[in-house]
């Protein structure tokens, strides 16, 4: 081959190789782009799938989506908030909202010396680590006998939102409610003189009393005033026990503002349970409002025999007790000069149907307050749901009231209802007993 021809062939070969290399580069770029495209496609599919999950609340049947709540259910759901609610000042208690009284009440709540035997404080039965209950079916008293009390120890979170206190509503104020266990011989078993002595004899308590009430602890001749003041300080402390927000609260507010993504974070089972609670189950008729209680009393068909031959009269006894109580809101110890806060007590109606009625408890933190009912006979939330599912109508309607019907829930529905009740557990609680430090006397 002539030299010139070889040079031409070499040039052509070189050009071909360059084009081949360019082609390979382009092919590689194309493959990279294709791969990137596939990655983007995959990511898009993942995002799409996540969006669908968020929109539907997970692997939820269509009937359980927020869009499937009936207008009545949504209205009922909205009634359970917002949370927390402001605690109103108690006009019958001049210590209500008083920071010094709160400090005194907190000190007394955890002080076993409030009992003359020094074996029981309020916090012995209202344990902070047990949502201010004791985990027993019925409370346990003090002294050597440690008697079994008649009723379940009520939780104390959010009690300030009520109007009646105790399972029978035998107290019409938080402070008269606090007096009962202090004085009851089976519980703290104290006297007014003992409480006054404690307040006078402990420098820190005496200082806190003076700060709270603007005077020294009353003398021997006025020990009852010291007792009631101690109860009012305890009530001021109890008013501060407001639980934090729950998963339900987040859902309720998300529903109110139309935030589907936030609402979708609420577990699907809880949402189905909520639909039962606010719909078919009509639970929210009595477990009404932001605190999940209408604050009143109902007979739900629970046995009320305390022991053979002795019946717990429930609300019937509570009405009589509050009427006869010298510490009620119509009495001389109320700080409400108008007595307007005693209007409920003044207008109380009493009838036979009150037998066997007990207070509708709040359901906030209900998961933490087992066992359940006025005598703690139901150990778990599942048992509670079963009770309402299988109600004995003959027992319920003996007095003519036709409020409750057996819900006849399936196992899956029962589990959903339990999931909803668990979603009412607060995600945060205030510190119940922060170290108060020594009392510093105010300048009066």
């Amino acid at each position, binding site marked *: 081959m002539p030299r010139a021809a070889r040079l031409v062939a070499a040039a052509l070969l070189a050009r071909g190789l360059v084009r081949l290399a360019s082609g390979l580069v382009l092919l590689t770029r194309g493959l990279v782009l294709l791969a990137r495209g596939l990655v983007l496609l995959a990511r898009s599919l993942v995002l799409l799938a996540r969006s669908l999950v968020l929109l539907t609340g997970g692997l939820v049947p269509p009937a359980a989506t927020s869009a499937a709540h009936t207008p009545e259910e949504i209205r009922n759901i909205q*009634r359970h908030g917002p949370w927390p609610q402001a605690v109103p000042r108690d006009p019958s208690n001049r210590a209500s909202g008083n920071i010094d009284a709160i400090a005194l009440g907190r000190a007394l709540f955890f002080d076993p010396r409030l009992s003359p035997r020094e074996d029981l404080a309020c916090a012995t039965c209202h344990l902070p680590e047990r949502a201010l209950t004791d985990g027993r079916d019925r409370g346990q008293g003090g002294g050597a006998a440690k008697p079994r009390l008649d009723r379940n120890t009520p939780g104390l979170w959010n009690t300030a939102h009520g*109007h009646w206190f105790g399972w029978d509503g035998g107290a019409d104020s938080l402070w008269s409610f606090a007096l009962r266990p202090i004085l009851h011989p089976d519980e703290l078993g104290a006297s007014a003189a003992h409480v006054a002595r404690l307040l006078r004899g402990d420098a820190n308590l005496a200082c806190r009393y003076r700060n709270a009430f603007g005077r020294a602890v009353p003398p021997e001749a006025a020990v009852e005033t010291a007792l009631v003041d101690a109860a009012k300080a305890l009530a001021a402390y109890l008013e501060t026990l407001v639980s934090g927000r729950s998963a339900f609260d987040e859902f309720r507010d998300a529903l109110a503002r139309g935030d589907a993504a936030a609402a979708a974070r609420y577990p699907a089972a809880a949402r189905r349970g909520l639909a039962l609670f606010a719909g078919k189950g009509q639970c929210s*008729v009595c477990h009404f*409002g932001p605190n999940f209680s209408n604050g009143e009393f109902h007979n739900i068909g629970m046995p009320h025999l305390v022991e053979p031959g002795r019946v717990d009269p429930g609300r019937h006894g509570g009405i009589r007790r509050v009427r006869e109580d010298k510490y009620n809101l119509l009495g001389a110890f109320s700080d409400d000069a108008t007595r307007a806060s005693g209007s409920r007590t003044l207008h109380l*109606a009493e009838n036979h149907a009150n037998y066997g009625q007990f207070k509708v408890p709040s359901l906030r933190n209900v998961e933490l307050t087992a066992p359940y009912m006025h005598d703690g006979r139901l150990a778990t939330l599942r048992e509670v749901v079963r009770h309402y599912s299988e109600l004995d109508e003959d027992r319920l309607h003996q007095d003519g*009231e036709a409020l409750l019907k057996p819900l006849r829930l399936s196992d899956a529905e029962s589990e959903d209802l339990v999931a909803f009740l668990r979603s009412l557990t607060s995600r945060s609680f205030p510190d119940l007993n922060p170290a108060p430090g020594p009392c510093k006397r105010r300048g009066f």
Partner: protein
Amino acid sequence: MMRTAMPAAGALRGVALAALLVASPAAYAACDAGPGVLRGETPKVALAFRTTPPVIKVGELFSLQAQVCPQEGVSVAGLKVDAGMPAHKHGMNYQPRVSSTGAGKYTATGLMFHMPGQWQFTFDVETPAGRERIRVDYTAE
């Protein structure tokens, strides 16, 4: 809201007795409904009332102010007030107190609806010829 008038039956709670009031047809017409006013009637007696607060809040005490308007020749001796939930077959947990403020007017205090749903007011107007019962439905939200 529906209003229905029913014949007298059963015992009631809150009651106020007033001097006999004999009214004219004009007085009967004075019980016409208006903004915020609820009304019920029988052939002999009409009754109009408003509540305080105007919208009843579940679980909160409220009062009501009523005007009784009898037909001509009918005298009124007093008024009883009660309420209940017919579907649930229960009444209120509180006993209202009724007082006459004169000229066929009454005030009832201490009423409370402790549940949402359909409630029914029952007014028993006492006349020498017997009791005239007026029922007025109310939905508590």
